């Protein structure tokens, strides 16, 4: 039994290394003694038979239309994965494309796939920097954000409350959107490596669905100590003091 993690549209949607979160999941699964593989999928034909998790990263605005066209060819699968509880992690513009829609600064709108509630709306200036989120499911999440749009309409189901950074913006004090096991976040880059608790919760869900048991491996302890040091440095940079468990 091999856990299959799909890295979706890595050619267009890997600007900040977000797609590497698929590798983080597979690596942690292997450290736990489970078989796991990452399958890169650029078109619907390349989808594997079995899908245990999906990672969809962020791209640039010029590829929004192209990525949307490609995602639309997998619209039915997305609905099915969402209903069946397959974990889907979407980041930045990948998340925006799974929403109800994206409003561009030009006034044009792009219709999303409607998998996650809410829509992306333009903001006056791009925001970049450290983000700290207190999440009821995953504890304290730490990462970087870099986006030119806010996100509205997910007020009832955010990923968590902001301790630092802009997150969904519009004075919501919130970051991200969650619907079942579908996640949308502005936290780009290796968010699952930096937040092992988040990664392990996704892996537990995947394992349970597959009739397996997930217990973090010994190697994960060593590596999570690096994550812990990186988190501490970033919390300091963000001016947030939270005692780490």
């Amino acid at each position, binding site marked *: 039994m091999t856990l299959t993690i799909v890295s979706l549209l890595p050619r267009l949607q*890997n*600007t*900040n*290394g*977000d*797609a*590497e979160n698929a*590798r*983080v999941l597979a*690596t942690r699964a292997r450290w736990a003694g489970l078989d796991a593989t990452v399958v890169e999928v650029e078109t619907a034909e390349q989808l594997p038979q079995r899908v245990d998790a999906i990672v969809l990263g962020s791209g*640039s*605005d*010029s590829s929004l239309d192209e990525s949307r066209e490609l995602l639309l060819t997998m619209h039915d699968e997305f609905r099915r994965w969402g209903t069946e509880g397959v974990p889907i992690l979407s980041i930045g513009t990948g998340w925006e494309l799974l929403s109800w829609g994206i409003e561009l600064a030009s006034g044009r709108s792009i219709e999303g796939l409607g998998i996650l509630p809410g829509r992306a709306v333009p903001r006056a200036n*791009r925001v*970049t920097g450290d983000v700290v989120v207190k999440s009821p499911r995953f504890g304290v999440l730490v990462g*970087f954000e*870099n986006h030119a749009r806010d996100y509205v309409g997910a007020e009832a189901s955010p990923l968590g409350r902001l301790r630092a950074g802009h997150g969904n913006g519009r004075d919501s004090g919130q970051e991200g959107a969650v619907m079942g096991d579908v996640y949308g976040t502005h936290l*780009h*880059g*290796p968010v699952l*490596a*930096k937040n092992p608790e988040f990664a392990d919760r996704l892996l537990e869900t995947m394992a349970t669905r597959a009739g397996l048991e997930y217990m973090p491996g010994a190697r994960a302890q*060593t*590596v999570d100590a*690096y*994550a812990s*040091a*990186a988190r*501490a*440095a970033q919390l300091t940079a963000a001016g947030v003091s939270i005692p780490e468990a």
Partner: protein
Amino acid sequence: MRYAPAILVGRLTRFAARLRKPGGGSAVPGLIVNRIAPKYLKRTLSGFPQGLVVVSGSSGKSTTTKMLVAILRAHDVDVFTNPSTANISQGLTSALLEQADWRGRVPGDVAVLEMDEGHGALVMQGVDARVVCLTNVMVDQIDRFHDSEMVASMLARIAARAGESIVVNADDAYLERLAARVRPGVAVHRFGVTDAVFAASPRGLGYTQTSDARLSSGTDVLVQTVDGASAVLDDAGASVSIGLPARGVHYAVDAAAAYATAKAVLGERFSSSTAADALSAIPAVFGRGERTTVRGQDVEFVLVQNPSSYQLNVDSIAPGTEQILFAIGSDVRDPSYFWPTDAASLERVSIVTGSKSAEAALMLAYDGVEIDRVEPDLGSALDDFLAMPAPASGVKTIVFTADAMRRTRTHLGLAGAE
């Protein structure tokens, strides 16, 4: 006479700065002259008898500029150029002041400037260039530029200042799109690599978007073959053998860029053999695969500036190299964009250090690299690394970012600090 008072003030400021920091350069005189004589920079840059040549792009602009200057000087052209650290407005004015007479005039037939892709668009407002050379668009310093389109649009604004020609990397799809939009009367010259060279780079050339097809031999300057630190260029069908300052396809591409730009600048006066000799005589660059002896130990220094140079350089470290020090400094604010790289071939790293050591260790660990120690303090890490007995195989290898490189130089008291 117009600028004499401003120049005098600039000179005095420079004198004062030198008293404070002997031997050091400073951007302060430039800052002051820009304030009291805001048009000095634009007028001076536009005033060279054989015009202004600008080199910009995400990566390779320093090397390309050095190579271009060497080729032009070998053709007996009197060149004014800026040190690579002075590629933004204040630094540029300071560099001009270094050479200026009391009226502010700078000697030279032609000016060749390396231009920061971010500040260049601003500096170039109202400045007329003859030729603009663009190297590539890469994802680099992402928290400054955010995305490739922003870099491309800033390069387009620099290119728009070219009155005679632009010289572009034909393998970079962003630059090819930019070249399609030059105004009438501005010539487009191209450089690139052949299909064979491209095929021999399994990870590609690192451009954000690579053009669909390579140039074919005939009118442009192509990198025909690369073998270690030597290469053969194809200049409109004729083969030209050159030496490179270090091994690597990207140096050959820089050489092709400099060669093509020199051709555009010199026209009939250009000699391919003079250009080849000048390119081959360029000394190795510090930090680029340079080997030196420090505290009695052979050490190889490897500078990484962006994900593509990181990948190229990591790939070039011999498998089984026993002792590697990894130093990632505060110049990499968010290392996320380095994650698509793969350092698995290193297998083991002795020490990971620098202000981003924890982030770097995390990334290396997910590549499957074993890490013996994480030591955030660069000084202690360097001392301990150099104190380790010489490795049984390979040479002590230090991989660093630009900020960590400067701190390493200072800590080890190495010459040539910028």
